[in-house]
């Protein structure tokens, strides 16, 4: 430790005011504070002691909450691969296969994103913010397993530059950055991120007879009879019961890397709520909104998707992942307590609406969150206005 500290101290003067590498100070600062919590002390007036938490620890807690999804997703990539090929693979083989896809995704996402962060930090002379630590992990988790890496790089660059830096950097962005990346791919390269891309197959392999890579959402949207029956019959011959309620909840199905398992998302949600880092209000109300909308559609009826039991909406697609990790982004969500209930509930409602009524976009959670990100300040505006009115009313009584 001492050696590292000495080395840092030795070069520090170069980066400080008047040093020859002055303009790279914030790049240096990012590395220094990564290694050592700084020796700064509180001011002589104001609070003299500070809470032990800092932004880095806060962000690490979110990353920790994503680890169950990441690990499960890694295994699931391998598992789905062998299912589709009609082979059996060992646990180790599945994990290895999964790592082969996931690790490059993570490297590209962090490499591109942090690179841009550093460049902007140096140009704009502001500290490198830790927010990207979370975004950099979210992006791989919402990508299909066999996405070309160059697309991930382009999407990440777009999201960081247009989604965040154009608005002034961390804390200023209007829409969730990871979802911006996802949406960019969705609209720029629709062929790669829709259709049967959710399972890693590999070059020139032959899939098992009867194989279909359709996701539960696609199955539900295409259903002409009863969605439940379609789910039950799907996979017969090569993956019995793959879309049973149980399996959907566990997440042993095709989909983006980290989004498939509702169970793992709930583990993440528990971590976020217990640590107080994520908003429980948002998570609960997204599920509530989706369920309520599902029920309402059941009552109205009309087509098979609308008649699908409401609780299925909670386990198919990326609803759980979006609710736990995307909707709770503290920057783009509503900032008031009451606002969080409304915001989350509407995300749930819109997710189901888009799923059922918009044939062009099979998954609704991405667009629902992006939409509500834009409306979050409006919700806060009304909540704050209520507060102001209480104050005004008191004054005139």
């Amino acid at each position, binding site marked *: 430790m001492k050696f590292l500290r000495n080395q840092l101290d030795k070069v520090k003067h170069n980066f400080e005011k008047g040093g020859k590498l002055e303009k790279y100070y914030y790049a240096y600062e990012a590395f220094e504070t990564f290694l050592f919590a700084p*020796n700064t002390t509180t001011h002589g007036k104001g609070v*003299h002691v500070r*809470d032990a938490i800092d932004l880095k*620890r806060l962000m690490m807690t979110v990353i920790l909450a994503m680890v169950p999804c990441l690990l499960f997703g890694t295994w699931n990539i391998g598992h789905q691969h062998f299912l589709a090929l009609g082979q059996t693979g060992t646990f180790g083989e599945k994990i290895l296969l999964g790592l082969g896809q996931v690790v490059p995704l993570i490297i590209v996402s962090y490499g591109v994103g942090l690179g841009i962060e550093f460049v902007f930090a140096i140009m704009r002379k502001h500290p490198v913010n830790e927010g990207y630590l979370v975004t950099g992990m979210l992006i791989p988790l919402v990508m299909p397993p066999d996405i070309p890496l160059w697309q991930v790089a382009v999407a990440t660059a777009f999201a960081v530059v247009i989604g965040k830096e154009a608005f002034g950097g*961390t804390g200023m962005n209007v829409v969730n950055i990871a979802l911006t990346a996802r949406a960019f791919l969705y609209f720029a390269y629709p062929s790669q991120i829709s259709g049967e891309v959710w399972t890693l197959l590999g070059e020139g392999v032959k899939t098992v007879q009867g194989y279909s890579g359709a996701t539960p959402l696609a199955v539900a949207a295409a259903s002409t009879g009863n969605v439940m029956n379609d789910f039950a019959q799907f996979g017969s011959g090569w993956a019995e019961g793959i879309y049973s309620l149980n399996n959907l909840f566990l997440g042993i199905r095709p989909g983006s890397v980290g989004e498939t398992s509702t169970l793992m998302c709930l583990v993440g949600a528990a971590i976020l709520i*217990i640590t107080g880092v994520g908003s429980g209000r948002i998570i609960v109300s997204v599920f509530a909104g989706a369920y309520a909308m599902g029920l309402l559609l059941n009552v109205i009826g009309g087509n098979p998707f609308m008649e699908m039991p409401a609780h299925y909406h909670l386990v198919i697609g990326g609803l759980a992942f979006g609710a736990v990790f995307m909707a709770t982004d503290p920057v783009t969500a509503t900032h008031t307590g009451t606002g969080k209930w409304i915001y989350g509930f509407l995300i749930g409602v819109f997710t189901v609406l888009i799923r059922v009524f918009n044939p062009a976009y099979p998954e609704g959670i991405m667009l629902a969150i992006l939409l509500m990100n834009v409306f979050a300040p409006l919700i806060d505006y009304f909540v704050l206005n209520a507060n102001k009115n209480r104050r005004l009313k008191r004054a005139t009584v």
Partner: protein
Amino acid sequence: MGKFVRLSKGFDIKLKGKPSAQVFDLEMPDTVSVKPTDFQGLYMPKVLVNQGDTVQAGTPLFHDKQFTDISFTSPVSGEVVEVVRGEKRKLLEIRILADRKTEHKAFRKVSVSDLSTLPVSELRSQMLESGVWTQLIQRPFGIIADPNVKPKAIHISAFDSSPCAPDYSILFKGQDHFFQAGVDVLKRFTEGTIHINTISTLEISTLFSQVKGAQVNKFHGKHPAGCVGVQIHHLDAINKGEIVWTINPAGVIQIGKLFLNGVYDATKIVALTGPEVKNPQYYRTVQGASVKKLLAGNLNSDHCRVISGNVLTGTQIGKEGHLGYFDHQVTVLTEGDYYEFLGWILPTVNKLSFSRAFGLLSFLNPSKEYKLDTNTHGEERSFVQSGVFEKVTPMDIYPVHLLKAIMANDVDEMEALGIYEVIEEDLALCEFVDVSKHNVQEILRDGLEMMRTS
């Protein structure tokens, strides 16, 4: 009848070094200082004495050019040894070499029964002249009360909930009849209620429970329950255009003594607290006293910070500095100017946190007292909202939005969001818990000044 208010939000910082109940009589300090910087909203203090002048306890030392009636007087008798000025000749301190035995300037003595019959103008002029008036604080803005205004109510917080706070039943023991006399005087200045706000978890000292002519309220909750701003918010919130006065019980007692004894009595008991103090306990000394004798032989290490006041709102004064005018507490902390290898991620049970984020385990042991230091535990970062400010602000106020309105210089928005109801101490915990390490109190004071002068 008094109200009972239960507050669910807030946080008690468990700091090592709570004072034990003994009170030690300290001999007269060498120097005593009066600092205009202890008061908010002074326009331009004008010095009324010269170096070398002899003064008595109660002799005016300076006044503000805007309110020349309000005297700032000497707490002791002695010789003016130094008028300390800073940049642009700003007055920072007037130091007095204290006599061994204090001579008091004589003021008119009044019997208890006369307190309710004497004209208010006479009470007022004696308070202004003697220096006790500066104990009266006006909300909004937390400035010295304007003598020409009638307040809507007067609030007295009868407990301190801040870290290692002194126990008021020790500070004001045996002062019951002075306190009562002070309340009697204050009653003459308002048509509204005098609120005395106590805490439900401690036995209320007779000083407060037996008082006549005031409403005794009870509060239940964690810090900042003891902050008078929070109390006002729940009892009788301040609206636009309204003026409320607040005063510490010490000030009420000082007013009582002024009229019953005819002297400006600036003696006070202070608690010496904090993890760096060998024997945290109470000391009897005088307002503005040098802390040199207080600290002599009583510190665990040399590398420490001496704070007049508590760790949330106090002022760093140095080992030979002087007590602040309103402070009843001196806290000594270790300076935290050290680097910590991977300090941002290693799990720890030795750091206190309001949060339960990864590796911060202090929530597992809520009664443990911590040896906190002045390290910031992280660097200043962009504002990332996490709803945590609201969890430590037991008021119907959105602190984050208020602070953003201040940063944007939006006066209308500040007013609408309730800036009149708060001063620094009320939001001090926000500064403590802030993940992005902003100076919340400084921002708030800028906003208050902007409102006051706009």
